[in-house]
């Protein structure tokens, strides 16, 4: 079943030596080229969920809670039902079964049952002949609420047990708590030369994809439910629909059309998917629901605010001896991925530096705010920020160069972390070298004059995890290939292309393996009727896992092609090479046939042509409860240097340049990899300087619009310099690892560290607003004016 180690990192034909680092043997892989759907997206031809329309289609809208925490006493939908043009009204009792993306914590209802937990919680849904009628009907629904105490402060949720936000949860308002210790931290810190202990705060932010969530459902006369949805987890949505709607899964088909961005914000099953499905079943009509931008803010699942306390110690040489973390996580109103978030907040910090001892104590609590979830760099961006700033604080105490302290603590490749994670290829040192030389760090750091500075930070991230959200031993990724007599190869993959280019990646691999142009490969993805299961686009797993499954399938097909041609030519299969749309005889290169002829020969010999391939992770992770969460078959590594200046009169920070070096194993398409690196760094700096997702004193979102939620514009964006580092992982597809999330992490701490170099203030509380910068500068001036003796 597991195909994980069947294929080395080399090219299909030239990779005699498994560790081959050269890209020269590849024809497709490693070349910069456009995405397979690039033209369709650029011209507007691509079909997104909201572009779908069906005869007789109804439009659905959601009634939401205006209260942050309340019990529903009564709902009267009779007036709404009576409105002309309204076809159906649903309330929570129509779908009482709870769900949640993590099977251990199902605490969401498609529509509120008994109580509401944040302003924006869905309460009822209406399907009508058009949007205006549906909106008018919403205003006719009467809901009587009994208000409950509202939790907006996670510290209060930690202390106060009543009322409970989730009444069936043990232990008050705690969502998840994890304490793990590896080695004896106290002992180690007691022997440290220098210990730094400090508090850090990471605020909330959201994904803000261009495309709002949208879903369309049809229910056929023979009882098949089809759902088109802007999701990044087709398979989990499929399972959740079966559970909540109490339909056998074989009567449900879930399709993800072209998607306009996700970043983790579409990796839960969402209310609208259940509502349109149920409404289609009830009315017998196709039903669409498109959320407004405001509703997308309420759906949220964005970055968890975290209060982080770190205590780290080093030897006099700057070697870490122990790290101790205590983290309070504000989860918002539902669990979502929270169980995983809580583990990730501790488990993913143990590289690229060697931690001899490590302890973390992370607690996620519920509050009456939009639910948090996984945003690009799920659970690990916050601790990484705190720790990388603390590392600079340690370096300062030892008068060590910040890059030097990171080099000294490098964990090495092919090693094991203190918490039992297996690390394979590790190009972190080269990442540091790249950003050091590109930024002219040695000549410039500390020498740019007051007001301008350089800062560095590093990070690591997973390429998928061996923890499938529901336990099973089936493959995590499956791929099926089908060959047409025209020479076209169709790839069927459950993988969700959310703009990261996974469909392109599949096409490149098949083209590479079969020696055909990329244009002769078409990809059908994320359709549960047509495609083998893939778990979805999250945890940066797709290139690694779907890529390996694609290689697996393509090599099985290639074997058949080669065998058929070899038989025809009466030569050894080793003499047959598939390249550039041809099969050629390596020892008699005048002898060749087109790949179309080769396909037809193989179909004649073997019957209808096709193949399947799969990937499953090896057994990974520490031997303790939770030890598999965050255990990845390969880790990516990143280093950033940020060049920033501070206007000390206005407190405004300007970022000039960011050098991003990222070890992605092998870059299957360097253009897409560089795009992911730049996009990640942009998103990180956006969080650091502009974006803030929070509620006001009433629990109302402070500004659920793209005017008030400040996404940086092109004018606010620095120049990014992507440096791809290729460590060539032994288990990745041709040696590839992830590139979509890792490169976000260092942006924020590197910026904080650059500001310290610029003006000598240590920014530990995000976001870095001008007001905070001015306050810190004032504090610094006040401290400096105190006479030495007094201090």
């Amino acid at each position, binding site marked *: 079943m597991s195909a994980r180690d069947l294929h080395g990192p080399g090219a299909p034909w030239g990779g005699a030596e498994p560790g081959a680092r050269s890209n020269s043997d590849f024809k497709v892989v490693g070349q910069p080229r456009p995405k397979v759907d690039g033209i369709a997206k650029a011209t507007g031809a691509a079909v997104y969920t909201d572009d779908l329309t069906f005869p007789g289609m109804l439009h659905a809208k959601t009634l939401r809670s205006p209260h942050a925490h309340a019990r529903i006493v009564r709902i009267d939908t009779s007036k709404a039902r009576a409105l002309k043009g309204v076809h159906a009204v649903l309330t929570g009792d129509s779908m009482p079964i709870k769900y949640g993306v993590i099977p251990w914590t199902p605490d969401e209802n498609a529509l509120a049952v008994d109580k509401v937990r944040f302003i924006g919680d869905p309460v009822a849904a209406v399907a009508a002949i058009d949007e205006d009628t549906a909106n008018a009907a919403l205003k006719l629904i009467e809901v009587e609420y009994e208000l409950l105490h509202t939790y907006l402060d996670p510290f209060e949720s930690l202390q106060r047990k009543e009322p409970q936000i989730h009444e069936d949860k043990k232990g008050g308002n705690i969502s998840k708590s994890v304490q793990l210790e590896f080695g004896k931290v106290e002992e180690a810190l007691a022997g440290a030369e220098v210990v730094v202990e400090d508090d850090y705060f990471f605020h909330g932010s959201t994904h803000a994809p261009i495309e709002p969530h949208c879903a369309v459902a049809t229910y056929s006369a023979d009882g098949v439910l089809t759902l088109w949805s802007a999701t990044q987890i087709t398979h989990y949505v499929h399972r959740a629909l079966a559970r909540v709607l109490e339909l056998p899964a074989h009567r449900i088909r879930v399709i993800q059309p072209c998607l306009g961005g996700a970043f983790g914000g579409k990796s839960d099953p969402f209310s609208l998917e259940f509502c349109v499905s149920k409404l289609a079943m009830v009315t017998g009509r196709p039903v669409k629901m498109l959320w407004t931008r405001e509703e997308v803010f309420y759906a949220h699942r964005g970055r968890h605010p975290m209060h982080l306390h770190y205590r780290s110690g080093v030897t006099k040489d700057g070697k870490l001896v122990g790290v101790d973390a205590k983290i309070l996580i504000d989860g918002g109103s539902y669990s979502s991925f929270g169980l995983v978030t809580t583990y990730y907040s501790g488990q993913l910090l143990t590289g690229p530096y060697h931690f001899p001892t490590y302890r973390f104590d992370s607690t996620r609590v519920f509050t009456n705010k939009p639910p948090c979830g996984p945003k690009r760099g799920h659970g690990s961006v916050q601790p990484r920020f705190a720790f990388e700033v603390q590392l600079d604080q340690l370096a300062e105490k030892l008068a060590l160069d910040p890059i030097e302290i990171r080099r000294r603590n490098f964990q090495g490749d092919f090693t094991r972390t203190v918490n039992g994670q297996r690390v394979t290829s590790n190009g972190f040192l080269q990442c540091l070298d790249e950003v050091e030389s590109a930024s002219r760090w040695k000549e410039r750091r500390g020498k740019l004059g007051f007001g301008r500075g350089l800062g560095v930070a590093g990070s690591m991230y997973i390429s998928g995890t061996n923890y499938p959200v529901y336990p099973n031993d089936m493959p995590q990724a499956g791929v099926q290939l089908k060959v047409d007599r025209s020479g076209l190869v169709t790839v069927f993959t459950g993988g969700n292309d959310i703009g990261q280019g996974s469909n392109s990646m599949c096409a490149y691999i098949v083209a590479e393996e079969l020696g055909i142009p990329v244009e002769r490969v078409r990809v059908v993805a994320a359709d549960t009727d047509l495609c083998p299961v893939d778990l979805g686009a999250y945890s940066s797993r797709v290139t690694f896992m779907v890529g390996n499954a694609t290689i697996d399938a393509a090599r099985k097909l290639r074997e058949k092609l080669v065998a058929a041609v070899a038989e025809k030519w009466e030569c050894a299969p080793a003499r047959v090479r598939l390249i550039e749309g041809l099969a050629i005889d390596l020892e008699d290169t005048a002898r060749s046939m087109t790949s179309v002829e080769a396909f037809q020969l193989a179909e004649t010999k073997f019957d209808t042509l096709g193949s399947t391939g799969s990937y499953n992770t090896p057994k990974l992770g520490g031997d303790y409860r939770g030890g598999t969460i965050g255990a990845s078959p390969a880790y990516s590594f990143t280093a950033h240097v940020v060049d920033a200046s501070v206007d000390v009169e206005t407190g405004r920070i300007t970022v000039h340049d960011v050098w991003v070096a990222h070890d992605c194993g092998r870059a299957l398409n360097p253009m897409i990899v560089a795009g992911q690196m730049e996009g990640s760094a942009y998103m990180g700096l956006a969080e650091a300087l502009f974006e803030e997702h929070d509620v006001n004193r009433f629990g109302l979102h402070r500004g659920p*619009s793209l005017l008030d939620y400040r996404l940086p514009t092109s004018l606010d964006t620095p120049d990014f310099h992507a440096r791809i580092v290729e460590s060539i992982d032994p288990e990745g597809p041709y040696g590839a690892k992830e590139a979509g999330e890792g490169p976000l992490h260092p942006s924020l701490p590197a910026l904080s560290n650059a500001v310290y170099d610029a003006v000598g203030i240590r920014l530990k509380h995000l976001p870095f607003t001008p007001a905070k910068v001015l306050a810190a500068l004032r504090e610094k001036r006040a401290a400096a004016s105190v006479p030495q003796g007094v201090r």
Partner: protein
Amino acid sequence: MLRLPQFELVQPSTVAEAVRALAECPGALVVAGGTDLVPNLKHELFTPPRVVSLALLAELRGIRRENDGSLVIGAMTPLAEVAESELVRAQAPALAQACSLIAGPQLRSMGTLGGNVMLDTRCQWYNQTYFWRAALGFCMKKDGTECHVVKGGRTCVAAASNDSAPALMTLGASLEIATASGKRTLALDDFWVADGIYNKQVARDEIVTAIRVPATGAGHRGAYGKLRDRGSIDFPLLGVAVRLELDAQDTVAQADVVITALAAQPKRITKVAEALAGTKPGTAAFDAAVEAVGALAHKQCKPLPNIPGDADYRREMVPVYVRRTLQAAARREGPVHHV
């Protein structure tokens, strides 16, 4: 997507017809470029039975120079055109600069100068969807009675947020207005009412047809400074328009500073001319006077937590932006903006 409420759209081809279309339908509203009104309609801040579009009134577009040297800018002239106009840049630099910083490029192509002058006041408790405002329990500006900015406040303090207005005030500009009974003129200085619910002395059934900017001479200096979070799109967190009139010896004879995004109307800082008069840009005396004007402005301006952003920080930035904008004007530079 948020839906527009239903209304009747009227597209008159003369100003007289437009005024009539307004007069015969109480509650009717004017739409110019729509960049302010359309989102406000979607938020159900207005539910007019009729919207009268000025889009077809070609006579309201364009910039011309009168014989007396004054500029007449048609109310429907796009903001981008005002910002780029050589005439405006030469004669009224503060206005050109202010217009260049309104919203973003796309919105400046649609948005008009008349529309910006007539911009609705803004507040974080008001510029929200109907659902959001209902969850809040509404506010006194629309559908409610309370003020969430000033506890127990009886007057709406939603902020004048039009960048063009303070610049026009420093320039002594006036509005030409078409009414049911004919025409009238209104100085920008007399335009305001200290009420955020509706802060203008222009009735809902009147139409601003043009903005008249008096002639300026060789000694005129002007600039605009804008504080906002991003380099584009955002409304001002603070807007500072300045005017300096230099005499033949290049010393300051007259000066004016008007600040917006504070409360319902822009604020003219008092004693500015006295502080700056007689000083010569580039000298220590001028710098000291500029510093003093900054301090005056800081004393006179108290931003409220009406629009998004930290009110204390906005106040702290008042003297900084006043100083920088005055210095920019003196050097014939500007606008003062962080990008």
